[in-house]
C-alpha cells in the first residue's frame, strides 16, 4: 500500500513497512506473528498521534497539498446525492479547474461549487492544477446567481494554489473576474458557506470564498500568497518557505484564533486522505449545523451580517 508519506511522516512509514513485511512472513510460515503485528500497529498509531499533535505550519502546508488528499469531486460524490454538474460561463469556455452544479444534501437542493485539481498527470493538466482562468470564476458566478434565483444555499469548496497567471487569463480579465465575484457574492440573497478543504491560495481562493460561514479543515491552509512566493519575495529565497508559512499564520488553528475563520473541522488521524469517509462524515455534520444556523436568519439580517463580518476583518487602530 503506497500512502505517499511526507518527509516528516517517515518514522511512521518505516513502521508500516515493517508491519507489512511481518504480515508477508506470517502468511508464508507457521510462526504466529499476530501479537508482534498488533504491538507494532499500536506503536504506529501512537507515533502518528505524537507527530500530528505538533505539526509546524509548513508541515500543515504540505498536508494541505498532499497528492492523495480528497478533492472537491471526492466530497461531492461521497457527501451529496444526485449531483448534476453544470458547465460553462456562457461567454467563452468551460473551465475544468472549477466544478459546480446542483445536488442534494439530506434531500435538500443545494448549489455546490469548488476548485478541482487532477489526480494523474493528464487530469492535472486538464484541470490546470486547480488554477482557474476568468471563465472558471464567471461560471462559478453564473451558478451562484442561479442558486439565488432558485433559493438554494451555496456551498463552496476551496482548494487552489491561486488564480492562473497566464497571458490568456490576463487578456480575458482575470482581475475583473475575481473582483466581480467578490462584489456580487457580498449581496447574494442566499446563505453561502465556504470550506477550505486544501490550499486556500490568495485571490483565486477568495473569489469563491465570500461567505456567511467560513470553515477550514484542520490541515488546510488559507493565505494571501503561497509560502514559497512569500519567501522568495521577503526572504529572497523560496527555501525559506517554512519560515514564511510560520510568519503568515496560514493554518486553520491560527486563523481561528485571529477571528478570521469560524469553524475548524477536525480531520482523521494522519489527515483527511487516511480516512475520507470519516472526513466526509464530520464535514457533513459541520455543514448541516452551519446551514441550520443560517436558515434561521431572514435575508436582510443575513446580508447585513455578511457585510459587517467583512468590515470587521482588520488589524489597525484608530487614534483619538
Amino acid at each position, binding site marked *: 500500500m503506497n500512502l505517499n508519506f511526507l518527509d516528516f511522516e517517515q518514522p511512521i512509514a518505516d513502521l508500516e513497512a515493517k508491519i507489512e513485511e511481518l504480515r508477508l512472513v506470517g502468511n508464508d510460515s507457521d510462526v504466529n506473528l499476530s501479537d508482534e503485528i498488533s504491538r507494532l500497529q499500536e506503536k504506529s498509531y501512537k507515533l502518528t498521534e505524537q507527530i500530528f499533535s505538533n505539526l509546524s505550519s509548513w508541515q500543515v502546508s504540505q498536508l494541505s497539498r498532499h497528492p492523495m488528499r480528497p478533492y472537491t469531486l471526492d466530497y461531492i460524490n461521497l457527501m451529496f446525492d444526485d449531483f448534476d454538474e453544470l458547465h460553462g460561463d456562457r461567454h467563452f469556455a468551460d473551465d475544468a479547474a472549477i466544478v459546480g452544479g446542483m445536488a442534494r444534501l439530506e434531500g435538500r437542493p443545494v448549489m455546490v461549487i469548488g476548485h478541482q485539481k487532477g489526480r494523474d498527470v493528464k487530469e492535472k493538466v486538464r484541470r490546470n492544477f486547480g488554477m482557474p482562468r476568468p471563465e472558471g470564476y464567471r461560471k462559478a458566478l453564473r451558478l451562484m446567481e442561479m442558486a439565488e434565483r432558485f433559493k438554494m444555499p451555496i456551498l463552496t469548496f476551496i482548494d487552489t494554489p491561486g488564480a492562473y497567471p*497566464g497571458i490568456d487569463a490576463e487578456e480575458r480579465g482575470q482581475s475583473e473576474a475575481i473582483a466581480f465575484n467578490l462584489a456580487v457574492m457580498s449581496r447574494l440573497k442566499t446563505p453561502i458557506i465556504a470550506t477550505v478543504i486544501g490550499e486556500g491560495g490568495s485571490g483565486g481562493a477568495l473569489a469563491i470564498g465570500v461567505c456567511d460561514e467560513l470553515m477550514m479543515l484542520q490541515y488546510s491552509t488559507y493565505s494571501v500568497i503561497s509560502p514559497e512566493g*512569500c519567501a522568495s519575495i521577503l526572504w529572497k529565497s523560496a527555501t525559506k518557505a517554512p519560515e514564511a508559512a510560520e510568519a503568515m499564520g496560514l493554518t486553520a488553528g491560527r486563523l481561528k484564533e485571529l477571528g478570521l475563520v469560524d469553524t475548524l473541522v477536525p480531520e482523521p488521524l494522519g489527515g483527511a486522505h487516511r480516512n475520507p469517509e470519516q472526513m466526509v462524515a464530520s464535514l457533513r455534520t459541520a455543514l448541516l449545523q452551519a446551514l441550520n444556523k443560517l436558515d434561521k436568519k431572514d435575508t436582510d439580517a443575513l446580508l447585513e451580517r455578511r*457585510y459587517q463580518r467583512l468590515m470587521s476583518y482588520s488589524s489597525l487602530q484608530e487614534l483619538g
Partner: protein
Amino acid sequence: MSWLNRIVPSIIRPEGAERKANVPEGLWRKCPKCDAALYRPELEKNQHVCPKCDHHMRITARKRLEAFLDRGTASELFAELEPVDRLKFKDSKKYKERLAAAQRDTGEKDALIAMRGNLTGVAVVAVAFEFNFMGGSMGSVVGEKFARAAELALRERMPLICFSASGGARMQEALFSLMQMAKTSAALERLKQAGIPYISVLTDPVYGGVSASLAMLGDLNVSEPFALCGFAGPRVIEQTVREKLPEGFQRAEFLLAHGTVDMIIHRHEMAEKLGGLLRKMTHQPAA
C-alpha cells in the same frame, strides 16, 4: 524600498533606482522613459508629466489629490487610522520596522489618502494610493479607509473616485490583507446598488489584490497613458508560461484593446474629463 525592487518586475520599478545615482538630487531629474534632463520646478508645474515625451511619472497621493480636486476645496478624511501588527510578522526585518521606515520616508501613516472636495463643482470623495509607502500595498488601513470612504459616499450620495497604484496585497498582514479585497468590493457593491458613481483610475502600476478588487469595479475604469495593470506581474507570468510577453503587454493601451478600461485620459485632462462624466451620470448641467 529594497524589498519592493524585488517584488515589482523590473519594468515597473520606481524609476531607475540605478539611474538615480547619475543625476544629482536637487534641481534636475531625468525622465525614466526618454532620458531628458528635466528642471524640477518645471516638472512639478507640469504635474510630473515629461514635457518632452509626455511620460506620466509617479506622483505622490497628496499631490495627486490636491491637483485633481478644485483648488481650496479638499479636506482629508480618516487620517486617524494607523496600522497594527497583530501577527508580529517578521522576515529579514520586522513589519513594525518596515512600517516605521515607510512612515518616516513618506510622512504618511499608510498607503491610502482619502479626501473630500469638489470636482468641477461636484462634491466628491476621492482616494489615492501612495506607491512610495510599501509599494502601495493594501493592508487593513488601506482596506478600511477605502471602505469608509465608500460608506461616506453612500451616506451623502457623493460620487467616489479612486486613483490606484499598488503592487497588490500586503504580505505582512497575511490573511487580513486578503480580506481587504472582499471588504472593499462589498462596500463598492453597496454604492453600485444605490446608483452612486464610482470611477476607478488606474495609474502605474496596479497589480494583484488591488487589481482583483477595487480597481476593476468602477462604473468606469479609466487609465493614465502607459500605466501597467494586471492580476499577475510580468515576471510571474513569464516564469509560468515560459514564453516572452508581447510588446506592450498589460499597458494601458493593451487594457483598452482588451476591453478592461473605458478610456485612457491624460493627467492634465483628468479633472475636467471625469468632472464632465460625473455631471452626466448625476444629471447636472455641463460645467
